[in-house]
């Protein structure tokens, strides 16, 4: 449990750092084009809300959503900075600053932490699941039958139907 809490705290701290970065970039990008600015706004919201939820409600589904959000942010970044917008505008990749690359590195670390938390959560859920439930194939069990003594003649017992 201590290890799990440590992972959560690190992910939360990093997510807040990334949120602050997006908020710092937001004004310039919004002035450049409102779509860029809106992207930064949504990215900041994902990081901020995700960090708080991870801190207080680290449920499997929320971790999964936060993970998905970070993967989408990274994918967007890679398309713009590495591949360029060759489909719509034929533009070359944008130059990458060290700070931008640093933030991407942090987001990759967050994704790694979230994957670890997600897998851990899955394992724990399976472990806590009552026997007979879930998708895992049932293992053959040994059956123990308690042999009752035969009813002796002249005695009686109730019979449940």
């Amino acid at each position, binding site marked *: 449990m201590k290890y799990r809490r440590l992972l959560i705290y690190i992910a939360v701290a990093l997510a*807040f750092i990334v*949120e602050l970065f*997006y*908020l710092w970039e*937001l*004004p*310039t990008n*919004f*002035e*450049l*084009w*409102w*779509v*860029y*600015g809106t992207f930064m*706004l949504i990215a*900041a*919201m994902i990081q*901020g*809300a*995700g*960090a*708080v*939820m991870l*801190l*207080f409600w680290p449920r499997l589904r929320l971790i999964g959503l936060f993970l998905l959000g970070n993967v989408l942010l990274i994918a967007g970044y890679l398309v713009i900075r590495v591949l360029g*917008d060759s489909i*719509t*505008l*034929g*533009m*070359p990749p*944008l*130059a990458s*600053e060290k700070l*931008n690359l640093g933030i991407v590195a942090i987001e990759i670390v967050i994704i790694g932490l979230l994957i670890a938390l997600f897998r851990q959560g899955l394992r724990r859920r399976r472990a806590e699941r009552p026997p007979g439930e879930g998708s895992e194939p049932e293992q053959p069990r040994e059956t123990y039958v308690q042999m009752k003594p035969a009813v002796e003649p002249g005695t009686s017992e109730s019979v449940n139907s």
Partner: protein
Amino acid sequence: MNEVTRRHLLKMGLLGGAGLVLPLGVLQIPLASIRETNAMKSPPVKPFQVPLPILPVLQPVRTDSTTDYYEITQKPGVAHILPGHTTPIWGYNGLFPGPTIEARSGRTTIVRQTNELPVPISTHLHGGHTPPESDGDPNELIWPVHGSAVPMPETSLALGSVGMTVHMGSKNYIYPNNQRGATLWYHDHRMGFTGPQVYRGLAGFYILRDDAEDRLPLPKGDHEIPLLITDRIFNADGSFYYPSIDSSLTRDPGAIGTFADGVYGDTILVNGAVQPFFEVSNTKYRFRILLATNASRYRLRLNSGHPFTQIGSDGGLLAAPVRQPHFTMAPAERFDTIIDFSPYPIGTQIVLESLPEDLNTIQQIMRFDVVRKEKDESSIPAKLSPYEILDPASATVTRQFHFERSLGMWTINGKRFDPSRADAQPRLNATEIWEFTADEHHPIHIHDIMFQILSHNGKPSSEDVGMKDTFLLNGGQKGSIITKFTDNPGPYVFHCHNLEHEDMSMMGRFIVV
């Protein structure tokens, strides 16, 4: 039923704060900035209070049998534009507008440009038939003598930072002047920052004269006046207001909010003075008018109702004069005209004004005061300077270019500028037709060549006459031009001359092969 505890409220408060309140709070910063920018207005100035400045002519530092040599230092300076204020500018030799270079057709001009500004520069001779290495390509930069905060060679948004050439401190621009006499101009052309750098003052006339023009009895000497018309927004302290995303001009190109459509000034300047007056005699005057605005179009007319006599266009004299009751000018276009003041009695005041185009009301540009009588020895000949009319049948290639806004950027054929991509490769000596369409008004400028307008939403108008280097298409219009690519193989650019559109990547590369 879960009870709402203080702990629970705290958690929800943190969630709302980090996920909603903080981001939306930060969003107010750019929104406030955009609101403030859009509401910006210059201090009011009473028109016709100052005389028209006559622009100084730059003297060569030396000449020889074939060449005139000039030296220009681009540096900060101070202009006195608004009464009681000084305006910091960036200028050629610290002047706004820059000094006029007078060159002769057939003689080479070499201009050594030295950069004492804090940012990189590139100087383009607009209308010049110039080898590519002296054209002033936006990616061929002169780095500041004193260093710069601009990261070299790429910037964060780096619109077209691929393939930059950097000259340290200064560079010689060689202009062979193997073209007709014409009213050209030189201005800054730095990739992504042309708008703010021209706005700060980096523009000047380059008048190319030839023998054919000299032989004509047109008004000359102090009756031949270059007029550089532009507009600016001023801060209350008299400084220029330009809505840059990055006012240091070191990092992010572009203008804030609606100014990405173009920076339209609210104060009109002629030769650097606010709505000046000019005292004239009752004779003919030749005015070489350059519209050096960043974005505004003007529709010029005289309030007296008299027409202009147009004698020239971007690429020099027309074949014959044309009477124009009014004349629409787009950024970078030149209108060479004669105004005859002989019908006016002494004491008459005639206002050059602009009919509503980009501005909602009639704007007064300058005033001519007829103050003295004089004998007029000039005349306007019926024939001016013939030039070769290109035959559309001789064109071997037709190309199409659509100028439009796409995904927040200004594009040509849906693409942002990429200097490493050739959008056209005309062959040397080939004649080509280029067809343009526009989503809104775009003054389309092609480097190196002059062209003739073949169609402009049908037949060309009377304003489309002559040799041109800039072609204004209004929104939804289409037009075509014909041109010949002679004797200068290499890379050039063509672009929208709304400087904010240009800075936001509405530019293409063509390579003459």
